């Protein structure tokens, strides 16, 4: 082999060996590249985009929920912020009510729910409700209060409408205090 071919061979050998080394490094470079590539393109967000799906929802029918509100012997204004909503059984829904204390002093009351028709009650599952607690309102205070609920998919098919009715009662202890207060006040 002539000297010139020999040195040509050697140059090529060096280049190819360097290329191999470079590719060894490229194997390592794939580690950060992989992360960067996924972050830029969002390609690895396979599981993040889809929120958990509630497979319990009966999308085959809608139930009308009507809201009603009353106060019993209490100087409060109490009304639902929507008159009715339609929900699929199994679906989580929320409704809001507004209550205003018209008196010039704090008062405490509690709401009691009732259902129409009556047998719908056991299928109406409240997750949170302002009726779970006593509500104390300062003088003239107004408040928005939620109820979050699910209608059980087992609800009999012939019930298409449920009326949810709340009545606010004044909590006993306070009433007595007020009763005492009235004679002195007037």
């Amino acid at each position, binding site marked *: 082999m002539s000297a010139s071919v020999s040195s040509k061979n050697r140059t090529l050998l060096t280049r190819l060996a360097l290329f191999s080394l470079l590719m060894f490094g*490229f194997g390592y470079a794939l580690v950060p590249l*992989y992360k960067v590539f996924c972050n830029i393109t969002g390609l690895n967000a396979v599981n993040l985009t889809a929120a958990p799906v509630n497979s319990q929802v009966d999308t085959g029918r809608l139930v009308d929920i009507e809201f009603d509100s009353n106060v019993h012997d209490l100087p409060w204004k109490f009304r639902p912020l929507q008159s009715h909503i339609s929900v699929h059984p199994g679906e989580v829904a929320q409704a809001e009510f507004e209550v205003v204390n018209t008196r010039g002093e704090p008062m405490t009351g509690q709401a009691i729910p009732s259902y129409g028709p009556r047998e719908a009650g056991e299928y109406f599952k409240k997750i949170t409700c302002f009726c779970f607690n006593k509500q104390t309102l300062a003088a003239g205070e107004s408040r928005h209060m939620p109820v979050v609920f699910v209608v059980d998919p087992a609800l009999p098919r012939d019930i298409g409408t449920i009326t949810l009715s709340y009545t606010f009662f004044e909590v006993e202890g306070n009433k007595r205090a007020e009763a005492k207060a009235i004679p002195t006040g007037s």
Partner: protein
Amino acid sequence: METTAMGHAEVHDHGHGPTGLKRWLTTTNHKDIGSMYLWFSFAMFIVGGIMALLIRAELFEPGLQFLDPERYNQIVTLHGLIMVFGAIMPAFVGFANWMIPMQIGASDMAFGRLNNWSFWLLIPASLLLVTSLFVPGGAAGVGWTLYPPLSIQMGMGMDLAIFSVHILGISSILGSINIITTILNLRAPGMTMMKMPMFAWTWLITAFLIIAVMPVFAGAVTMLLTDRHFGTSFFSAAGGGDPVLFQHVFWFFGHPEVYIVILPGFGIISQVISAFSRKPLFGYASMVYATASIAVLSFFVWGHHMFTSGMPVTGQLFYMYATMLIAIPTGVKVFNWIATMWRGTLTFETPMLFALGFIFLFTMGGFSGLVLAMTAVDVQMHNTYYVVAHFHYTMVAGALFSAFAAVYYWLPKWTGHMYNEKLGKVHFWLTMAFFNMTFFVQHFLGLAGMPRRIPDYALQFADFNRISSIGAFGLGISQLLFLYIVVSCIKGGPKAAAKPWDGAEGLEWDVPSPAPYHTWEIQPQVK
């Protein structure tokens, strides 16, 4: 035409140089090294084959018979590693050593000593693999794909496998650098690139693939090693690593690797088909471009091995279409082979039989590949015996058949004798029949849902497994006939002419048979 350029077929073996074992240890002669590669490859073929028969014996009937599940997985892993890296790749490097210098009119490979090293590295590498069976905890039982997290948890057999892969990688990178340099720098005057035989062309492209992806594989196993022992967390989820990342890095190497295994075979088949059709290869230039585009595309399809690993739909679609795209240049090749035979004067000697068997069966392997490329289908078939059937149709009926074709085609040149044609044909038909018996039924097993890499299976798979196991033993035993044919051809037989195949083309047929120890010391002038 029958007379040779180097009239005196005198064995040209100058008395100089060491003899005996020392000769083989220190030789820098491409023919010596080629022969060592081929014998090494055959030895590994037998070792890997015995492992395959162990697997098939265990699967002969349901239940656990011979191997406990850990051993079974170790054998499956070693079978895969040994066949791919120990048998098939070295076989093609052996052919390259023997034939490429002769085909392009060079006196030897560009770097003789490097060549010697490339070969001798294989010995410790294979010993590491085989002896890892006997270390505490046994060999790596993770499958040839070495997926973490299991490969991070395995015992020291895994470390031995990793070192073995390192050495095998260095060996094949050095071999490839040698082949590229030889082809690019040492061609005879007048031997332009587009006059080179297809075997040299496909090897040139393969060698570039090897130096591009073997280092990446070496990197991947090095990361495994440091995750195992040096507290890094590339793949170990416990330290914030990502096991799926390994799959990406592995298959970035792994898919080009399957083309490394098959491309030199494409070259051999192109030459054999043309020789026995007595026609020049149809569409030579398109063959070169098809090979090159297969090589380029092979870098963009690795995701088809990972459809079930978690991948967004965009990725699945990309890899599905890219994979199907590869079928186009592959189809061009099959078309060209068939067109080469069209109106040719065909004869069916053993090399031609293996070439035809190759075209027939490899095309089937390509089709089952296309089936697997469809994401929606692959989700069902991934890791079943359907995949096993697919890759044995491509690697055994593809790569191995082309290696058999090459041996029969060039054996007269190497030994100076004709092999026993009748026995050669028997070897082909036995191999053909038993190969299909072994692997065709595995398509059905896969479709019926039998997972791969398990030592036991549900009863409904029993019949097909029994057929497959019987076929496997037939296939294995038939290869002893091959050994017999080769050995008796070396020992004697009818004298081979310099050009024993009248349709063959290429410079290798211009030197006498057997090829003298030194050929083309004065480079020929190619018109």
